[in-house]
């Protein structure tokens, strides 16, 4: 147990985090990506480590994704265009988020984790991405914001998933 476990100045509970994650999942499943982007802070990072090295530093390895705010915005702009061919027509997705745990608090930030199964259906082919999220959520006047969002895949080889063209 560390010092940050002892201080919860934000008053954020696991139920609050669950509500937040479920709302975020619904925005993604409904392709409301601009609203999803609004959940992030300006100094945010969205990252997916290399599938063969889940513990790697995503900025210093050949990861799947290391998006700071600028690239995350470009990713969202792209995905909403019909010329983002891999996602036009859009995949249908359904996210199952479980095993939500608060790992600690530091000032106005909450560290938490959850398991995910993201189902992707397109062209009659169904695949599932399985893994675990790590979040740093920042508590502010307008509610929780995502400062850090990491999706760690359990699949080390993306067969049959192939693309990760959706947001995990």
């Amino acid at each position, binding site marked *: 147990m560390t010092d940050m476990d002892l201080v919860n100045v934000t008053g954020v509970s696991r139920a609050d985090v669950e509500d937040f994650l479920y709302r975020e999942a619904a925005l993604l499943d409904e392709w409301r990506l601009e609203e999803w982007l609004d959940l992030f802070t300006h100094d945010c990072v969205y990252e*997916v*480590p*290399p*599938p*063969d*090295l889940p513990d*790697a530093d995503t*900025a*210093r*390895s*050949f*990861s*799947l*994704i*290391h998006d700071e705010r*600028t*690239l995350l915005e*470009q*990713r969202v*702009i*792209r995905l909403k*265009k019909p*010329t*983002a*061919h*891999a*996602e036009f027509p859009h995949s249908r997705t359904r996210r199952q988020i479980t095993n939500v745990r608060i790992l600690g608090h530091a000032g106005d930030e909450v560290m938490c984790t959850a398991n995910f199964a993201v189902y992707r259906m397109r*062209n009659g*082919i169904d695949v599932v991405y399985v893994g675990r999220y790590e979040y740093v959520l920042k508590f502010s006047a307008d509610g929780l914001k995502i400062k850090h969002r990491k999706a760690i895949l359990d699949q*080390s*080889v*993306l*067969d*049959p*998933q*192939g*693309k*990760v*063209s959706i947001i995990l």
Partner: protein
Amino acid sequence: MTSQAPLVVDDRERGLFRVHRSVFVSEEILRQEQEQIFSRSWLYVGHESELRKPGDFVTRRVGGRTVIFNRDRHGTIRVMLNTCRHRGAEVCRLKSGNSRVFTCFYHGWAYDSTGRLVSVPDGDSYSASFDRTELGLHQPRVESYRGFVFANFSAGPDSLVDWLADARYLIDLVADQSETGMEIVAGTHHYSMRANWKLLMENSVDGYHGLTVHQTYFEMLMNLGITPPGTDGNRETGRGIDLGHGHAVATNPELGSPLMSPEVLVERDAHRAALAARLGPDHASRMVMTRNLGIFPNFVIVDLNWGIQVRTMYPLAPGHTEITGWQIMPSDDSDSMRRYRLENAMSFWGPAGLATPDDIEGLEQCQRGFASVTEVEWSDISRGMKKPAPSIVDELQMRVFWREWNKRITGTGYEPEGQPYDADYLRSDSSAQTGASPR
């Protein structure tokens, strides 16, 4: 294959080139490819930088076989088939590590890092004819060029460097980017697509698809203040060049430097100035062009300056392909330059990049279209065929692949197309300092 109808039509006189779509869907063609191509070609296994210390190993699939790619206790790079000589089990079940010995867990036969059989439990029970020295791990031919290690499962006499032909000059342009050597970055993109492997070989050197498939990527660059070549209306830039033996390159002026901070720009310019001083200005300016290099049958290097993708693809079925992608970069890059390269590489390449998924989508759509092969039998690859100097948006690069493929499968010979690779920049004195000197 004997009196069958042609699979590739190469009409030089009329400037028409067609490929029969059965080659993408036929199980029989796949069987022939496995026998006549993947069992008899130099296949890329890995890069020497992946094995730093004696004993380091990785296991991976090459040409359908699983191999142990290792550096033995003496420092020699080896490729050994990962199958016990006793009953067949894989003797190494880890993806990577460091080991002096590989022990098959089934009955306990053990091999050292050179592949020699060093332990057989209860070995006294074998007859005098049982010869352990003949029962080491099987090792195909292995040769390395500038750090890139290839294996060949056939016994032929052809050397790797002869096989590479003019493609070696393009490998040199990658290998010479660092005086301390190039290195594979940690992290592997290992994924699949529902399309034939040859479609990705075509796509990897195809400039024609750039603005249509990657429109959103180019729009992203323009959103960030970059104007890439080809987006100003003149798409006929660069060159497609036949390098011999089915290898080809599409080479183009650089794409620009997206996402580059002023500090990294200073560093990039200093690195280029050092290259020009070391290699000569002609050589250095050739080096900063982009190059999409396809080495027959299934090895690709795509060097876009800010990132260098190394890629292999193998068929799992006619419509199912296993793809592996790595990044390689100068081992002496600063931390900020590494981060810059990786940020660009990740934003472009891989299953979650802003470009690769659209390539794969295009190839999977082609594969779906091949369901109509009975009615629509041919794909057309004629673009730029009668031009004296085909550009990157022409299709010479793909025709070069297909001619070698056709030779392997049907025995049909071919002549080169277009002007050969111009390596004039190597004639300047300073080039003697590189590994690219005559060999």
